[in-house]
């Protein structure tokens, strides 16, 4: 039996903006995870210093992944109502995660 598409996911945007934005988030999170795996290589040399950023970014990625479904629903709905809330939390969490990752890298290379 064909499942009915949930009403909230429908939108009439011919530019498919909600999908494009969702995919942009997904590939950014995927890149974040790839960078995390690179930090694994540092564990023998830097120890805990390399584990912490991995842990931190995994949590950030998980939080954003959970928020994305709600965000997609909001953008589909918002396009119909001509109003979408700015994704302030997601931007702060993702930007913060990348800044912390680079800062840890800097400290590890600079002083390690």
């Amino acid at each position, binding site marked *: 039996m064909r499942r009915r598409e949930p009403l909230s996911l429908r939108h009439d*945007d011919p*530019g498919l*903006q*909600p999908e*494009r*934005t969702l995919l*942009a*988030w997904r*590939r*950014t999170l995927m*890149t*974040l995870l*790839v*960078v995390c795996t*690179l*930090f694994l*290589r*540092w564990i023998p040399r830097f120890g805990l210093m390399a584990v912490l950023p991995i842990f931190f970014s995994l949590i950030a990625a998980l939080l954003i992944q959970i928020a994305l479904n709600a965000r997609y629903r909001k*953008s589909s709905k*918002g*396009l119909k109502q*001509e*109003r*979408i*809330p*700015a*994704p*302030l*939390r997601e*931007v*702060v969490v*993702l*930007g913060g995660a*990348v*800044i912390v*990752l*680079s*800062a840890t*890298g*800097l400290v590890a*290379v*600079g002083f390690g």
Partner: protein
Amino acid sequence: MNSPDSSKPPSPDRDRLSASLLGGGCEPDPRFTLANERTFLAWIRTALAFLAGGIAVEAFTGDVFTPGLRRAVALSLLVLAMLVSASACLRWLKVERAMRQRKPLPLPVLVPILSLGGALVATGLIVFLIYGAP
């Protein structure tokens, strides 16, 4: 679809953080909000690429570069990653504010710095590969 200059007051149900950081003005076209979001994500991916480069240089190029050079390249890539990600957040916020106030969008200050930084690092590496290789 509404006309682009129809002004909508800010949503009453937004939280205090968004209200204080984004300020007043009127709600922008939702397509612009999404476009700004995707631009932010593209900058973040650029930052992640620099970060990955920095980690990779430090982890994998032990027998290519001298320790000092390896450290310098890794550090400069990591600094670039941090600069790009911080300015991506700030730029997202500035653009969002400008759109709400119907003001012209701010210029991306980082673009010339990034091009210059990239060019300098690349030139340094070329010089090293030609003259400095053991």
